[in-house]
């Protein structure tokens, strides 16, 4: 009896590498680096890997740059069957420092020496809080717009069960989990990072603050994506669509008219 040569267990493939990198987020833009087009190349020789990352500018903040590069290294080393892992950040003002730190397993403090104090945990947490705030605002504003009888002040009483299922709710649940907030149906939606809600009179202001956070994240995300496309021609092909904050100038923008049912489009003059 002949047996087909099956792929060896734990073979390291391009796809496996990219899926492993899906868990690495740009903390500031709250998106995986694979969706943003930050993964420049993946080279596999046997079980060994070399991955190059790229960013929208040379002057992107070095702490975020380091976080993404070291998170990538951690994610790839955890791949079953992987051999040597090399991660390099290209064309950054701190490329030499960061790449040397990664190659020598120097850690954050060893990499940045006198410029590092303790850890990047606080930085990561700051942006996890912002990501939750933005996700919460998206859900609540959508609810407000879909229900004309609902007032801003009443949003403080909305619970998770009141939110329609979909991308926005899933996104909120994910961010709540990251912060250690519960996801039970009866949980209040409008809460701070500690899970504490707001008095009705505080709600409109809290919503406005949350809105400014959401606008900031969406605006930065699209600007950074655009800069990457300008800096590295062709890199747009590696970016996935970001619907939040999308505008007609975006390459992935789909006008509403294109979403009309076929019959309606055909009957229009």
């Amino acid at each position: 009896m002949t047996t087909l040569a099956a792929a060896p267990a734990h073979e390291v493939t391009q796809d496996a590498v990219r899926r492993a990198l899906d868990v690495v987020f740009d903390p500031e833009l709250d998106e995986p680096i694979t969706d943003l087009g930050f993964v420049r190349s993946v080279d596999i020789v046997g079980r060994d890997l070399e991955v190059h990352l790229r960013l929208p500018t040379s002057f992107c903040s070095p702490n975020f740059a380091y976080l993404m590069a070291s998170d990538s290294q951690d994610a790839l080393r955890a791949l079953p069957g992987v051999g040597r892992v090399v991660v390099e950040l290209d064309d950054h003002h701190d490329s030499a420092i960061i790449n040397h730190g990664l190659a020598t397993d120097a850690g954050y403090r060893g990499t940045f020496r006198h410029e590092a104090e303790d850890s990047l945990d606080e930085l990561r947490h700051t942006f996890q809080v912002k990501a939750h705030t933005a996700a919460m605002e998206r859900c609540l504003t959508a609810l407000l717009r879909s229900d004309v009888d609902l007032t801003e002040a009443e949003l403080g009483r909305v619970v998770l069960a009141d939110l329609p299922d979909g991308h926005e709710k899933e996104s909120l649940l994910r961010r709540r989990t990251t912060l250690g907030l519960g996801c039970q149906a009866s949980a209040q939606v409008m809460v701070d990072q500690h899970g504490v809600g707001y008095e009705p009179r505080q709600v409109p202001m809290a919503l406005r603050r949350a809105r400014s956070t959401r606008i900031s994240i969406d605006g930065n995300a699209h600007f950074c994506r655009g800069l990457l496309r300008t800096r590295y021609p062709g890199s747009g092909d590696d970016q996935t669509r970001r619907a939040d904050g999308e505008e007609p100038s975006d390459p992935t923008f789909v006008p509403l008219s294109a979403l009309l049912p076929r019959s309606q489009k055909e009957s229009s003059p």
Partner: protein
Amino acid sequence: MYSKDGENYFIVDAHIALWDARPENIKNVQGQQFIDCFYDYHRNLSPESEVWSMEDYAYQGGERLMKDLFTDGYVDHAIFQPAHLGEFYHRGFGQTEEASALAAKHPDKLTYNHNFDPRNGEAGLDQLRADAERFGLKGVKLYTAEWHGDSRGWKLDDPMAYRYFELCRELGITNIHIHKGPTIRPLDRDAFDVADVDHVATDFTDLNFVVEHVGLPRLEDFCWIATQEPNVHGGLAVAMPFIHTRPRYFAQIIGELLYWIGEDRIQFSSDYALWTPRWLIEQFVDFQIPEDMSEYAPISTDTKKKILGLNAAKMYDIEVPAELRLPEADETETGPRQPEAADLASV
């Protein structure tokens, strides 16, 4: 002055530069990366007809600057806000001699602001005294991400910086323009954090703090501190060109600013030579908040006049023809501008 539909707009471009990033002035790879980064901003956000070649972009010179701003650009008065970047460029990035000479030649059209770096210690304080006298300084431009030996950034609330602000107060340098840069020590925290602006604004209530780029990429942090500090203003450098590529985002930026800090504390700028003022002014005068963004009130013509020039003219005592002046809005000094919609005191 710009005129359209019977309305006249007095224009102050509150943030311009005369830089030199030609190859012979570039000191190291960072100098090249810095101008490349600016050029990508320029290419990414400009209308196609306004994109320059890298050769034009690296250096403009005084003659071209005068043409772009005053002949073609409707600008009545412009303010130099130079970045030094001495670690990246042999003769610095902002050209002190050329720009200050140009301002001295056209005092009705140009104001020269200079910069300081508190890491220069006592010697820097003496230099600031000399610069204040030489240039007749009313303002300074501070770039907190400037590299300086081993240090790659400083904070406005560093003790030495306080000595400089005390000296500014003594010398009558009242307008402090701040560019929050992308690197600051320690790297543990957010490099774009504007919390230090909050501290200095509270401790130096007689100085104006103009946060350039309206705090972008931290618009939300900027709005939150600026709404509580009446001496914190927002400069629209880099925010303006979104009007073309990302008009909905631009509408949100302006909408948020008008809500949190009101129409009297926002200043227009082209950030020349990142962009040129002509198309920005034309588009801003035509601009309106999209109808579906019902969370923001429409922008009035008077508000546009204030942003485009009257606010900065007031801060710099630039004379505005009597018929173009407007009174300040009858609004709260701190807190959101629609207090019926939100109550700051409760937060």
